[in-house]
């Protein structure tokens, strides 16, 4: 088990999350692409995820609904959020990409909501497998909207946080 690292790439406008797991590449790939396993870990804490459609081929998509089951999340408790990921660039057990969009329970994409593009890459070394997730937003407007949605909690301007951020 290792902790995750998060970086802003020096050459790209993308964010990367990476972590190494003590499991074979096969097993990790399976957890990422088998809907039964994916549903167990995809959603945020306090949310239950159900996957109602999954076609893991280029151009195919997975449709997932997440329900907030944590009463402590007052604004969200009992609410659903639906997402659709359209697969691309699949290279079995090494990498795949998906475009993630907000949608309704039928998979109809919500107009005007931000889309993001993520590439997942696996690498096995001595029995452990690293997973990296690199995300970029389809447009600056999309990123701005995601930011606006996550902004309600406000943001800190302290030096500590700045330092935490700058040392990447």
């Amino acid at each position, binding site marked *: *088990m290792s902790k*995750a690292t*998060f970086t*802003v*790439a*020096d*050459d*790209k*406008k993308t*964010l990367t*999350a990476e*972590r190494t*797991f*003590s*499991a074979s590449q096969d*097993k*990790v790939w*399976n*957890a990422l692409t088998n809907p039964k*396993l994916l549903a*167990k*870990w*995809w959603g*945020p*804490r306090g949310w239950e995820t159900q996957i109602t459609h999954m076609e893991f081929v280029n151009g195919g998509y997975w449709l997932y609904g997440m329900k907030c089951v944590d009463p402590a999340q007052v604004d969200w408790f009992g609410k659903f959020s639906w997402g659709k990921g359209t697969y691309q660039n699949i290279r079995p057990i090494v990498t795949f990409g998906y475009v993630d969009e907000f949608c309704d329970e039928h998979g109809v994409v919500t107009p005007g909501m931000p889309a993001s593009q993520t590439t997942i890459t696996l690498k096995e070394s001595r029995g452990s497998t690293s*997973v990296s*997730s690199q*995300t970029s937003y389809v*447009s*600056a*407007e999309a*990123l*701005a*909207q*995601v*930011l*606006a949605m*996550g*902004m309600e*909690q406000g*943001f*800190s*301007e302290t*030096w500590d*946080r*700045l*330092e935490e*951020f*700058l040392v*990447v």
Partner: protein
Amino acid sequence: MVESNGSLDLLFAALADTTRREILAQVAEIGRSIGEIAEHYKLTFAAISKHILVLERANLVVKHRRGKEQVVTMVPRTLGIAQAHIARYAQIWGDRFDQLEDVLKEDSSHE
């Protein structure tokens, strides 16, 4: 609250460079002239000015006139926007990875 005029694209591009992040750290607490900033680098004054211009376009710094010099100061709010986004991303993937770890463990206990 957030202007969606493409400024965030500029923001992430501006931050995606080690020299520019260092310049930003230099002007975070006190304003410095371009000359003062340039002292720390082997780069030319023009190259430093160019980096500062990129930071300025992203609204990460502002320039004021102080006598004959221009003083560069950070705009903390803009960095806060980038920081909040990264924190949110880190939280989502941090939680996902923790849960994935549990799934992988569970999976091996069945074998």
